[in-house]
């Protein structure tokens, strides 16, 4: 607690650039003073008026914090910060303060995205652009959009809610990314001297602790061993930084002396066994064809005038005493390895001990996994064999495959008709066959008899010439007739034989019905009054279409009327089902409300 002062921009609205200035927060109030003295925007707000705060997720474009008067209506103060850590400090602060003020703390985690917090239905420009693009590209979609959204049957949001997958193919990808470790190396934890006294100060944050634990497993292990049984957390870190300071100062004699005296401190100065073991294991897993001995001599540390400047002084290999030296390269590599490993999910920046334990546990799991890997020796051998072949002369291992896809939905439409015809044709045949019950013994015996009959030899021509020619011409006719009757492509289909106008009308209505039914069924069960009104709207629209379909059926010429009615039938059926469901629900609803009025319910 206390006071937080950071530079921030105040934004009267989300879209505005913001006014730079200083944000100062105390336990009672927060004030904002613009850098520009002439600016009139000055804030001085008491936290008691504040009900909630919202913030953008880490990793999004802007580090925003919105301090709200009212959770429902909105209206608050939006601040943009230079970076997320500043924002997080403020956020945590506000969270604590609000927690104090309110008996029920407002939810802090997972606040909605900025777009939804401002208005019920506000969409970003990019989103709008995508929608427009989709409409432009797909004329059928455009037609539907025009028909339903413009006429008010569906709202814009409802229309697009059903097509989420078309919209955000790329948006969700960014939001799912987890923040990894900072790529800045740990050396940044610099001791601060005030110049007067002989005191040095190290500032530790959770983030830094996490990083230390991740990069130096020995320290983590020591922490788990010593704290809190042997020493307090504070003592532990003091010791750690003392060792670190000694180490940095390159005062090896002093370090050796200290280590001899204090065995806990010695732990920090010793070589990190866990890291060493890990690297040994990694070496064992290196591609067997790689000649690691070849570059073992590439070590310029021992050569005069070679080396890297670190902290202003040249690193020299000084291996006289027992204490190991870490070279910059080793540090860099270790850090890089940790960054690449990434942050494991479970570890949250909270209690130091919890962090240490979680890290230790995740390492354990990794280790056991690796142990399994090493057992898979044949795999390694396989790899060895593969690698020794000249790889650029190898063919690719990929097999041909086709992507699965949904084909033209119109085919379903055609099929309806064909099925109707087919069922007509087929009824009657084979009813006797259906009722036959046979014993397994007889059946198998029959089969064996038949096979031995074939074994005896086939005699005579397999087919009579007349039958063959009949079939050949029959198939030909069938092929050429299906071309005109029931082909695959829309031009060749049943629809193709209808007058163009009727065909278009039917297809339009079909698309509309699909759209409406989708919305209709997805609104069930009706839980809010909004959904109720939506269903009613849709039902009215469907009734219109129902009437239109009837009209089409009446209007067509008698020679195609049968065809058209066959095509329309499934659509009407689907609508009927929807109406029936609607009426049913309606009845239930009224029955229930009646029951309540009559006072049956307690």
């Amino acid at each position, binding site marked *: 607690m206390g006071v937080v002062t950071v530079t921030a921009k105040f934004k009267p609205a989300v879209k505005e650039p913001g006014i730079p200035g200083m944000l100062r927060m105390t336990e009672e109030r927060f004030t904002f003073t613009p850098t520009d003295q002439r600016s009139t925007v000055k804030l001085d707000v008491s936290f008691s008026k504040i009900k909630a705060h919202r913030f953008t997720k880490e990793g999004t474009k802007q580090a925003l914090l919105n301090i709200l008067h009212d959770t429902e209506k909105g209206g608050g103060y939006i601040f943009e910060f230079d970076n997320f850590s500043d924002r997080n400090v403020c956020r945590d602060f506000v969270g604590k303060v609000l927690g104090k003020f309110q008996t029920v703390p407002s939810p802090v985690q997972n606040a909605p995205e900025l777009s939804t917090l401002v208005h019920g239905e506000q969409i970003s420009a990019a989103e709008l652009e995508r929608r427009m693009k989709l409409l432009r590209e797909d004329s059928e979609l455009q037609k539907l959009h025009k028909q339903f959204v413009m006429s008010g049957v569906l709202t814009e949001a409802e229309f697009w809610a059903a097509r989420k997958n078309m919209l955000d193919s790329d948006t969700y990808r960014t939001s799912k990314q987890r923040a990894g470790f900072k790529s800045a190396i740990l050396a940044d934890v610099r001791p601060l001297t005030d110049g007067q006294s002989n005191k040095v100060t190290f500032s530790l944050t959770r983030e830094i602790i996490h990083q230390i634990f991740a990069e130096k497993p020995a320290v983590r292990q020591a922490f788990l061993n010593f704290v809190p049984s042997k020493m307090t957390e504070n003592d532990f870190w003091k010791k750690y930084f003392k060792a670190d300071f000694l180490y940095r100062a390159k005062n090896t004699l002093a370090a050796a002396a200290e280590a001899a005296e204090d065995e806990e401190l010695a732990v920090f100065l010793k070589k990190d066994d866990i890291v060493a073991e890990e690297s040994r294991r990694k070496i064992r897993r290196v591609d067997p064809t790689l000649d690691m001995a070849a570059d073992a001599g590439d070590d310029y540390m021992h050569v005069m005038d070679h080396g890297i400047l670190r902290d202003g002084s040249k690193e020299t290999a000084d291996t006289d005493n027992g204490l190991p030296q870490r070279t910059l390269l080793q540090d860099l590599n270790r850090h890089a390895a940790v960054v690449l490993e990434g942050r494991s999910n479970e570890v949250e920046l909270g209690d130091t001990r919890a962090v240490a334990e979680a890290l230790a546990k995740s390492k354990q799991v990794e280790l056991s996994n690796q142990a399994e890997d090493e057992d898979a020796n044949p795999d390694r051998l396989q790899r060895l064999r593969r690698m020794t072949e000249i790889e*650029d*002369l*190898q*063919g690719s291992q990929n097999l041909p495959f086709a992507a699965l896809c949904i084909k033209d939905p119109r085919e379903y439409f055609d099929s309806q008709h064909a099925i109707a015809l087919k069922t007509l044709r087929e009824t009657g045949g084979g009813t006797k066959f259906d009722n036959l019950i046979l014993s397994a013994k007889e059946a198998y015996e029959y089969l064996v008899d038949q096979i031995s009959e074939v074994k005896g*030899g*086939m005699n005579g*021509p*397999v*087919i*009579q*010439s007349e039958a*063959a*020619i009949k079939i*050949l*011409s029959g198939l*030909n006719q069938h*092929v*050429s007739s299906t071309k005109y009757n029931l082909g695959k492509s829309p031009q060749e289909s049943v629809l193709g034989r209808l007058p163009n106008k009727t065909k278009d009308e039917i297809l339009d209505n079909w698309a509309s019905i699909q759209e409406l039914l989708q919305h209709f069924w997805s609104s069930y069960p009706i839980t809010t009054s909004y959904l109720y009104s939506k269903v009613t709207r849709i039902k009215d629209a469907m009734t219109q279409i129902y009437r239109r379909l009837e009209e089409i059926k009446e209007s067509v010429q008698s020679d195609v009327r049968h065809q058209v009615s066959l095509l329309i039938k499934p659509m009407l059926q689907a609508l009927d089902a929807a109406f029936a469901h609607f009426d049913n629900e309606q009845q239930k609803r009224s029955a229930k409300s009646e029951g309540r009025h009559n006072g049956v319910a307690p």
Partner: protein
Amino acid sequence: MPQVRIIAKNFMDMVAALPAMKLDKLYDSSLICEAVLRSLPPLAKKYVLQMLFIDLPVSARTMEEWVLPDGSSKHKVAIDRLLQLRIFLEVIDRKRESSYRLNPIFQENLRKYLIHGGTLPREPMPSNVTVRLPTLEDLDAYAIEQWECFLLQLINSGQVERLTGFNPSMIKVFQRGLLSTRDNEPPKLTENGFQFLLMDTNAQLWYIIREYISSSEGHGVDPAELISFLLELSFHAPGKAYNMNTLADVQKSAISDLAALGLVKLQQGRKDNWFIPTKLATNLSMSLSDSSSRKEGFVVVETNFRLYAYSTSKLHCEILRLFARVEYQLPNLIVGAITKESLYNAFENGISGEQIIAFLQQNAHPRVAEKTPSVPENVTDQIRLWETDRNRVEMVASNLYDDFPSKEVFEAACDFGREIGGLLWEDTKKMCLIVRGESHQEMRDFLRRQK
């Protein structure tokens, strides 16, 4: 027989060229029907199958309905082929429309074959005869070695280590057209010869067999008999030994030549002599259609004009030597470079740049063949450039006309020359012009008329 023409897969043309009588006689054997069927284009094969049980002619128009519009050219090829080989017989009906029916002999034999199976004219060696037979791998190696040896001998390469048992005069016959024989000069590979070397083994084999058959025709051997024997041979199981005594005289004399080519391996038993067909023989009937006989490439060309050929074959080395400088020969790798000198050598021998490029492209190693272009563009361009370098001077036979009586006549002659597209050069001052040789007659007629 036509003169030497190098067309890869025209053995069946030869069969088709047989007189109808002999062709029909060939079809007496169901094995030959089978071999001929296999040689057909895919569409034709299918037509035969669907006509197999139909005894009546089917009208040509009906057949056209069997294919989609895209396939009409393929349909025509298929029908033509079937007619050529007398598998389809044309029947003109009363309405003067042509219709086709399957050749009854052919049809009957195929039907029998499908239902009852065919039989070989001879049985393989019974298992109780104890003769050590070569394994299939040995046999393959033998066949390939024999064939390569034959090819090397054919192109008169210095690399030949031993001669095949082929009659040298026969070799001469084969060389006719492949090698140019100028006096006092060692014979060199001609364009045709180069093309021949670039063909795949089966096509080469068929070419040689064709030559062989036509030359033995000169010795009074019936080609139909040889053809049927060869086709029959292709149905023998490879690796099985067959008794020589089952062969007719013509076949016996042919078999030693076939052994020299690597088609069969001869083996002497205690009592009988045996012949063992190799893969080359069994492949004879197999791959007369194109795609299935494709070979795997082996050449990698780099942008720095270096050339790597993953091959153990001496023949490949010889072919590469024709246009590239071979630098090293490792057990399974030939390393070379394409240089200006090596290419000039090739051009001297009448090999064109396009042929070389085509060879490199067709034989590209599968891994580079996936890329486009499979041969680096700078290499192909340079090959073309070097070729055109040699052709800076173009020879055109032409006539010089001078001594014109007047400027008018000269100009009229010039105009006329230009009109007929024969004018090459003119000099108004000296009043002379040069016109292509082939236009000389017209020019002369024109000048006569001017007088």
